[in-house]
């Protein structure tokens, strides 16, 4: 049955891809900054500089995740239900991570003792590290396929999610977001934090390219029959190759933009490769959840389309404005005047 691609189900599949991409693009560098916190921020004021580069915007970036989750619930209830219940323990870990991380940003500098701040710095590091890894594992499993039974339920348990391919995808997202974060710091920080971010970005860009290349080649080996991601994975590798050169040439603005485009390219590859499936069954292809059998009714999709087409541009507008307001680089002098 060929339903073509000009339909609301496909539009919403694309929109959910866009929402996840927005989340990974934006929160990706927030995770990266959090992961680099103990490595680049040797002194308390340096860690404060790092946190304040993302301070005004990290929470808005995280809402992309909530919107993606809500949109999956509204547009593809079956996908939302199967994925969120199937990935139960993994999502629980992500929830723990996001909870302690969010509180840590707000609370760490409200008390001067070093024990207090060290505790919250750990929360920021772990709270950034775990999701950066686990979201990659989750999407790796979506590409690879899962044990979905005739009822559309995931029955593979927790450990099956930690298969080698998914783990490589997890490491890929981890290093890619870390690189993205180091480049963000190269644009937003000054002084010591800037210097260290730049020196981290150089080797990291090479390592990330190697890991991404491995993951992409493995993806080709996985895809039999329908799920052909086309040339996009090669484009992604090439983009990161260019990032290596841009970092060496100290063109950090372009390098940051291209890691962002790399994230978008990988996401596009994942979504195109799985389409029309949203969750591919490894038990029987007929059990797979597709954009058509997992979707909401036409009425819900229409209403959601109107809402999204009006409000997504507005959100993009004011989020862009907030980045513009906070466009200045941050250095030690911006945080040391504060009493607490």
């Amino acid at each position, binding site marked *: 049955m060929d339903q073509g691609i000009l339909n609301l189900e496909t539009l919403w599949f694309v929109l959910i891809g866009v929402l996840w991409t927005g989340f990974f693009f934006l929160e990706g560098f927030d995770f990266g900054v959090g992961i680099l916190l103990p490595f680049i921020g040797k002194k308390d004021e340096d860690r*404060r500089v790092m946190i*304040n580069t993302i*301070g*005004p*915007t990290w*929470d*808005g970036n*995280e809402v992309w995740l*909530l*919107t993606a*989750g*809500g*949109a999956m*619930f*509204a*547009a*593809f*209830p*079956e996908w*939302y*239900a*199967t994925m*969120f*219940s*199937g990935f*139960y*323990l993994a*999502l*629980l870990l992500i*929830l723990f991570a*996001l*909870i*302690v991380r969010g*509180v840590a940003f*707000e*609370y760490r*500098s*409200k*008390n001067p003792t070093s024990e207090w701040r060290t505790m919250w710095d750990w929360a920021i590091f772990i709270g950034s590290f775990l999701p950066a890894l686990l979201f990659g594992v989750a999407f790796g499993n979506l590409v690879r396929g899962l044990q979905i039974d005739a*009822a559309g*339920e*995931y029955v593979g348990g927790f450990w099956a999610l930690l298969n080698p391919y998914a783990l490589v995808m997890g490491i890929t997202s981890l290093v890619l977001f870390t690189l993205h974060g180091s480049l963000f710091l190269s644009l937003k920080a000054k002084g010591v934090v800037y210097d260290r971010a730049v020196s981290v970005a150089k080797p990291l860009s090479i390592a990330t390219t190697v890991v991404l290349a491995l993951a992409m080649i493995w993806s080709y080996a996985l895809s039999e029959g329908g799920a052909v991601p086309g040339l996009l994975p090669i484009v992604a590798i090439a983009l990161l190759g260019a990032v290596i050169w841009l970092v060496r040439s100290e063109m950090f603005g372009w390098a940051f933009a291209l890691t962002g485009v790399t994230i978008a390219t990988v996401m596009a590859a994942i979504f195109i490769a799985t389409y029309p499936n949203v969750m591919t069954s490894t038990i029987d292809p007929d059990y797979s959840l597709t954009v058509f059998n997992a979707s*909401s*009714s036409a*009425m*819900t999709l229409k*209403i959601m389309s109107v809402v*999204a087409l009006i*409000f*997504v541009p507005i*959100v993009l507008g*004011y*989020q862009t404005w*907030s980045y513009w*307001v906070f466009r200045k680089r941050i250095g030690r002098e*911006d*945080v040391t*005047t*504060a009493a*607490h």
Partner: protein
Amino acid sequence: MDAALLLARWQFGIVTVYHWLFVPITLGITWMVAIMETSWVRTKNPVYLRMTKFWGKLMLINFAIGVVTGIVQEFQFGMNWSTYSRFVGDIFGAPLAIEALLAFFIESTFLGLWIFGWKKLSPTVHMLMIWLVAFGTMASAFWILVANSWMQYPVGYVFNPETGRAEMDNFLQIITSKMVWAQFPHTIAVGFATAGAVMLGVAAWHLARKNHLDVMRKSAAFASVALLAGSLGVAFTGHLLGQTMVQVQPMKMAAAEALWNTEQPASFSLFAVGDKKNSRNAVDVVIPRALSLLSCNNLDCEVQGINDLQAEMVAEHGPGDYIPNLFVTYWGFRLMVGSGMLMILIGGLGVWFYLRGKLDEHWWFLKLALWVGIAAAFLGNAMGWIFTEMGRQPWVVYEVLLTRGTNSPTVPAAWVTISLVGLSLLYGLLAIPAVYLFVKFAKAGPGDEEDNADVAASMVY
């Protein structure tokens, strides 16, 4: 009841009540901080700036926990209640997605601009940021209550036997249902009352010590007005909500009254000891005709009792026990209403003393506001939701879908045990720094005028 279901229900109850300790404060305090900052921008009276900063900081400490615990709320429908999510997603998912898109983005983006934008934005634009946050919190409450109201009073849908789920038929009917417009104003009023109670309690602590009298007198007066107006609003909208319940969920109100048999006129129960085995109350102290008055604004109308409603439900939906947990609903309702009455009393006293210029003269009132006012606000909030949700049982969507069997079939009891214990521990531990910081900054009081010269620095992370 199977273990996984029971554990999932406990988890939902615990994380939701916990989330709701922080959210009503946010709902009210964002508006109050917005009004304070507006007063500063208009009058340039530095007392208003110090108020804005002081209460703004407490707002942020509270806001952080509300935000992060909110993520769990959205995820757990799919994680723990996948069968429910499949059945209702076509209707229930939309308001959740709209809430994120319309409200969460506004709240988070403009709060970031407010915290970090003191020096980068003009005073008027900066003030506008907190107004947008306040508007965002209200929009958030609206959309999540649209979702909840549909569970209480499902309208605007059709059951599709082919897909085996409820599907949207009329979006307008869903967002304009009488349940939405009873629950939403009730919740907003609760927000003002709760924030008013917390602010009054904190201000009372300082007034009792004669600290920062300029800021704290104004704050206490402001908080008293919010508390009185808010809690009167809660009572009024609660009355409307109750009458709506009598129409759409008569079982919940009969359970709240432990009213076993249909009465005309009906009495309001003050104290009852139930005897479920014999479907009657062993002890019941009542006010004659009062329930008729509350239910339909006259002294004579009939109010249906539990036994008749149970028989009706059996006739309509087949054999089963359709009576909610009476102990929880009966006493939850009473504690909710009792807390609300206390809040009206404390708010009323506050306004009275303020009008006579004696707000800081009565030590007993200051103690009452600090210890009883805040406790009543939290208790009333928790009991309100426990009553609303437990009173709807055994239904998850009233008279459409039973709670039993809607939890995730692939999530075993062991997994739910891990998440229930893990989340409870984490939430419990997080309360320690949250309360510690709130008390620390509340006690420290507002800075003096020189501190306020560097507003920007004191707000960054």
